[in-house]
């Protein structure tokens, strides 16, 4: 299963359409993915509406049998001492972009492709507070109904995933296991406009796993590239790309 794919299982999960093993794996994933959980809650509620639409009268004998049976059935103890999922993350009802990025990175781990380190997620969450607005945009791209994803192996065991939403005209690049750039250098991301490189921002040089909302609209760009540039970035690429990725096509 490829990187961001696990998030698309919210629909199948809400419809109980996953085989048991995949269902359990997805439930483990849900424990750590508030954005997925929220979507699952909404889609499950939607599925329940489909159930309500096929209601039919139930026979009186069934009522009698059930009401008789419950007099002999002991009730379970209430659920308490359960791990509260929202602890430490604030209960804002909104997902931070990094929480979602963490989902997708966790999805990558599930696929056996990359390993998400908890510390990285922790750091990312702190950063998220500082860059809330950008994160919300990032989250919007990742959760857009028309979000399309493609992943590829980059050099040195790294893996890159690009998520493009046509309706938002924005793209997000998710990196896993990137080797740090040489000292004094940064990774710079570029939109590929038919061979012309348009700067789309810098990656965090300290993070080996990073989620970047690409600067500017996707427009006609057919893909993206990454180059190593002097700290602060360049107006146009000054070195050969270390990675070139095509955007997913519809």
């Amino acid at each position: 299963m490829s990187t961001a794919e696990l998030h698309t299982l919210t629909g199948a999960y809400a419809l109980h359409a996953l085989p048991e093993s995949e269902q359990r794996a997805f439930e483990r994933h849900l424990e750590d993915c508030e954005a997925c959980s929220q979507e699952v809650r909404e889609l499950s509620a939607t599925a329940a509406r489909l159930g309500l639409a096929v209601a039919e009268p139930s026979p009186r004998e069934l009522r009698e049998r059930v009401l008789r049976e419950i007099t002999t059935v002991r009730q379970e103890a209430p659920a308490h001492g359960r791990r509260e999922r929202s602890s430490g993350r604030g209960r804002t009802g909104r997902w931070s972009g990094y929480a979602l990025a963490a989902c997708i990175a966790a999805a990558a781990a599930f696929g056996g492709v990359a390993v998400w380190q908890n510390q990285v997620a922790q750091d990312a969450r702190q950063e998220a507070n500082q860059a809330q607005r950008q994160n919300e945009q990032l989250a919007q791209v990742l959760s857009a109904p028309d979000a399309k994803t493609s992943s590829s192996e980059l050099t040195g065991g790294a893996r890159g995933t690009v998520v493009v939403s046509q309706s938002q005209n924005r793209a997000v690049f998710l990196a896993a296991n990137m080797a740090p750039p040489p000292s004094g250098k940064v990774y710079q991301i570029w939109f590929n406009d038919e061979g012309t490189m348009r700067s789309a921002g810098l990656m965090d040089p300290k993070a080996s796993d990073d989620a970047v909302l690409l600067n500017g609209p996707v427009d006609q760009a057919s893909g993206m590239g990454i180059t190593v540039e002097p700290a602060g970035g360049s107006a146009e690429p000054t070195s050969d790309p270390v990675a070139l990725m095509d955007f997913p096509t519809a």
Partner: protein
Amino acid sequence: MKEAVHISGVPSPGPDLQELMVRVARGDQDAFASVYDAVSGPVLGLVRSVLRDPAQSEEVAQEVLVEVWRTAPRFQASRGSAMNWVLTLAHHRAVDRVRSAEAAAAREHKAALLERMPAFDEVSEQVETRLEREQVRRCMRTLSELQRESVTLAYYRGLTYREVSELLSVPLGTIKTRLRDGLIRLRDCLGVSA
């Protein structure tokens, strides 16, 4: 019982279902009888749409309704409405049954699954059900054909997404995506919030 047009959320007919569940959780059998009256129709209808066989459906519906009683103390209102909780449980139990080994052997021919696609064939006298059915039918029409088929086969027929993929000869990844974006479209059309 009031007859209301429900714009959003799952309606809870009669006395407030959430409050009743709190009483059921404390072992109140009268409250359970009221919960039963509110949920048994949807539970039976849903189980039957998945299992078809009337006797087996009643048996599973009974198990589900007793399970509602047994596990009521674990119901958490903060996680969604009681009706959602009950119908999710009912769907799981129906699907578990349909996927169990003995049922698999008796499973009907694939072609038959496709033939009966629209699952809204039973008649009901209840106004609320009719309105709900109308709304769902209307929203189903806003889906693409593949979205509608995928969601219907998964939900009303209890197929796994792999089975849906095989049945419709469409790649797995596409089915996963269609199940999600189909439900998202339904969610928006029905105005569901959670």
